[in-house]
């Protein structure tokens, strides 16, 4: 049994294979979005450069640090459950959720600010991309937090152990995907010009 698991672990990614199919599909959609942004910018370089300056780069940095930190906390939660330390696993997951919540709060403030300035999807092509890309990602953060919360509850109830923690690894992989997407989105939309 142990031998089978070690072979499986070295040939397949951590977590359930189904979540990886889902992750790859999500990544493909974001890749198309990023390429569309970059090539659309080609036709409107000045407009993209001008309106990029209206974005709150400091808020984006806070969000970047929040997501990276939450991803790190999730890594620690997986390490904890592999040591059969359920309590610490739950604590790390709650810390990761707190960072996720910080992301949502900061991003919501950004959206409120834009809304109060009259910015919407039809303002111009830059804002159309900015709002749709970041909101699509925002929805993924919410979904990731729901998954992490469910895992935290199940971990607290003793559902996971050193022998069986596929659920924790699956949720962790999804959350890292959310982080991964933001790591490209942040420089592309907020910095590169």
């Amino acid at each position: 049994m142990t031998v089978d698991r070690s072979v499986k672990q070295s040939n397949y990614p951590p977590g359930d294979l189904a979540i990886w199919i889902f992750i790859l599909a999500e990544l493909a959609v974001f890749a198309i979005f990023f390429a569309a942004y970059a090539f659309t910018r080609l036709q409107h370089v000045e407009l993209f450069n001008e309106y990029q300056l209206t974005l709150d780069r400091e808020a984006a940095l806070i969000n970047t640090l929040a997501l990276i930190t939450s991803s790190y906390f999730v890594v620690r939660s997986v390490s904890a459950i592999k040591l059969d330390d359920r309590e610490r696993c739950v604590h790390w997951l709650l810390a990761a959720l707190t960072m996720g919540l910080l992301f949502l709060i900061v991003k919501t403030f950004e959206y409120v600010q834009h809304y109060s300035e009259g910015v919407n999807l039809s303002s111009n092509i830059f804002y159309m991309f900015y709002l749709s890309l970041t909101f699509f990602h925002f929805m993924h953060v919410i979904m990731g937090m729901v998954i992490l919360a469910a895992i935290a509850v199940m971990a607290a109830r003793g559902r996971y152990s050193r022998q069986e923690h596929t659920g924790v690894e699956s949720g962790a992989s999804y959350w890292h995907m959310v982080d991964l997407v933001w790591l490209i989105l942040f420089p592309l939309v907020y910095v590169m010009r």
Partner: protein
Amino acid sequence: MKQLSDYLGIRPCTLVYLLLIFFSLTTFLVGQMGFSGLGMSLLVLFLALIKGQLVGSYFMGLGSVRGLWRWPVFIWLFIPGILIGMAFTLSYQ
């Protein structure tokens, strides 16, 4: 990465975390200091791709996977990375 983290007396994931923070702050400073141009854009893109690969290998655990499953994140970073780099290069011509 593991040997370096051993030398520093920290976990590999902690070292990766610190590198991610450092690269993110560098990216932010490039924007804040008003640096622009093709070279800076490609540098920032390159840093983002490095960060993505670190997340894929060390946080997602793909660095210790054999075979096909080792590569999806690398390929995902490579293809949009090339396309974005190409689009930005064309915008300067």
